């Protein structure tokens, strides 16, 4: 390294040459690209979650003037409220039954649509149609179908001789819950079918070939090849569905408003009611924080399952 005595390197000079503007630009470049999105996501999602936690620590009821610090009071009262546990239980029940139904049906429909038949492309498109229906429209549509006096379901079942008398589909808590699951399944099933179809097609056909050569029956092929290969899809649906049940709202709002006898009041609906009907922001925030924590726990599970090896886009 030559050091010229005629041109001594001053500190400032060194600083200037050392700084490769292109490189610095290069280093910051990703952050420029990320900045707008990060500002939006931090400002409107992450910051509010923490703010929500703050609100949950307050006595903050719009019907009572003033706010005061409540500590964990809102949580304590919540955990002592049987209605809270009941609605949490309903949410999990909703998740479990809908997962079981939707995975089984989705699987069967996908297997059928994987066969060769005339009009297969069209059928696949038709199956996805209900997925596009806005949830509130789905709710009102099924409310009309289930209508006890003039609804299509009663009319159809009666004309076909399946029922002797018109039924009240949404009068009984247990029945209402299942009727909601049916309405929900109609809307989302197509999406799961398409997921299953995509992974069915990704199974190399030579595996089946060799199995057939070995004399394996179609049922054995299904159990030993298809099912294991679909495992990731099963898990994906399992977690996605569980997470989605925490945000179920529209369909309940349209069909039962949480009734009958609170039989369909899931946790998301409870949070809405506490906050925007009873105007108890403190308690509502506490419910929403509980939901957030549960969702976070399930999300971690989700990330663990699928993105462990590579947290980024894989």
């Amino acid at each position: 390294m030559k050091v010229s005595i005629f041109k001594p390197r001053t500190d400032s000079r060194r600083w200037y040459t050392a700084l490769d503007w292109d490189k610095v630009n290069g280093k910051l470049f990703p952050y420029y690209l990320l900045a707008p999105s990060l500002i939006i996501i931090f400002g409107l999602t992450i910051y509010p979650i923490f703010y929500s936690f703050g609100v949950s620590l307050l006595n903050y009821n719009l019907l009572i003037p003033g706010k005061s610090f409540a500590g964990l009071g809102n949580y304590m009262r919540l955990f002592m409220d049987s209605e809270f546990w009941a609605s949490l239980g309903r949410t999990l029940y909703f998740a479990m039954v809908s997962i079981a139904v939707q995975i089984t049906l989705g699987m069967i429909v996908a297997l059928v649509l994987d066969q060769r038949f005339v009009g297969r492309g069209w059928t696949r498109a038709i199956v996805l149609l209900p997925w596009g229906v806005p949830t509130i429209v789905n709710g009102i549509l099924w409310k009309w179908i289930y209508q006890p006096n003039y609804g299509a379901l009663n009319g159809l079942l009666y004309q076909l001789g399946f029922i002797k008398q018109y039924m009240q589909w949404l009068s009984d808590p247990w029945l209402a819950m299942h009727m909601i699951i049916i309405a929900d399944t109609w809307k989302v099933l197509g999406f799961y079918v398409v997921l299953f179809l995509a992974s069915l097609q990704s199974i190399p056909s030579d595996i089946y070939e060799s199995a057939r050569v070995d004399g394996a029956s179609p049922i054995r092929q299904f159990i030993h090849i298809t099912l294991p290969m679909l495992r990731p899809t099963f898990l994906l649906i399992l977690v996605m569905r569980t997470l989605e049940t925490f945000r179920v709202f529209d369909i309940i709002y349209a069909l039962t408003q949480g009734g009958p006898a609170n039989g369909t009041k899931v946790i998301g609906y409870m949070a809405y009611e506490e906050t925007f009907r009873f105007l108890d922001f403190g308690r509502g925030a506490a419910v929403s924080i509980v939901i957030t924590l549960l969702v976070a726990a399930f999300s971690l599970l989700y990330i663990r399952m699928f993105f462990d090896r590579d947290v980024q886009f894989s």
Partner: protein
Amino acid sequence: MQLKTKLTNKVLLYSLVAVIIVSSIAPFVWMVISSISTDIELLSTPPHWIPSSPIFDRYMALLGIGGDRVVSRIGPSFQLSITAFKCGVINSLLIGILATIICVVFGSLAAYAFARLKFWGREKLSFILLGTRMTPPISTVIPLYLMIKALNLMDTRTALVIIYASSSLPITIWVMGSFFQTVPKDIEDAAMIDGCSRLQALVKTILPLSAPGFVAATIIAFLNSWNELFLALIFTQSNASKTLPKVISEFSTAFAGIDYGLAMTGAVIATVPPILLALLGQKYIVKGLMGGAVKG
């Protein structure tokens, strides 16, 4: 013998397909039939499956064709619902389009950074991104409510544009990112060797090649805002900002009482755009939403 089993298999297959098709579209058909039945026919037991004298007045009224005469035929008491519906269509379109533009523009920049560039905090940030993608709206709604109120943006379309953009942004980034990764890196490198800056390379080479990603992200973001009800219930009040889902929910709960004929007509109209989008973009959406989770 073999011919016979083949035949029964065929019959079985086609009948299963028939069941699948019928159960997928029967509710749609009933929705359309209800929308063109007269009030008297709607309330008949057993139901009139095929309307004897179909009417299209409700469609004309909701779409603003035919003027006051049509409105007076279906009942003047629905004038308010009809006005609200027309406003709802415009609001939903405006809000959906603006929120989608914000999502896709900002989202594609961020997605590019995640998919292609190495930087400090990349893994942590993508982890956070995944987390926010799962966040249900109820987790943030109280602070958002207080913020929107403090900014005096209650009952404005602006509020919903901002909120919908933020709620769809994580998934947009996610979807675009997984598409960007399918573009070979060589192409981009070649462009940069030719003297393009990174930004130019992004615009000139990667964006055109990941057009399917754009289609997917655009459709997903638009559908999210078009179909959203919960936040609209809270942040909108009047015709100035009410979206279609909110207007439709009021068809069944408002004081004027439920009118299934009108509700079904509104339902059909509100369902057409998302279904068309879902049909057109089917391939991309599925790929996008699977987001590399199930390796295809």
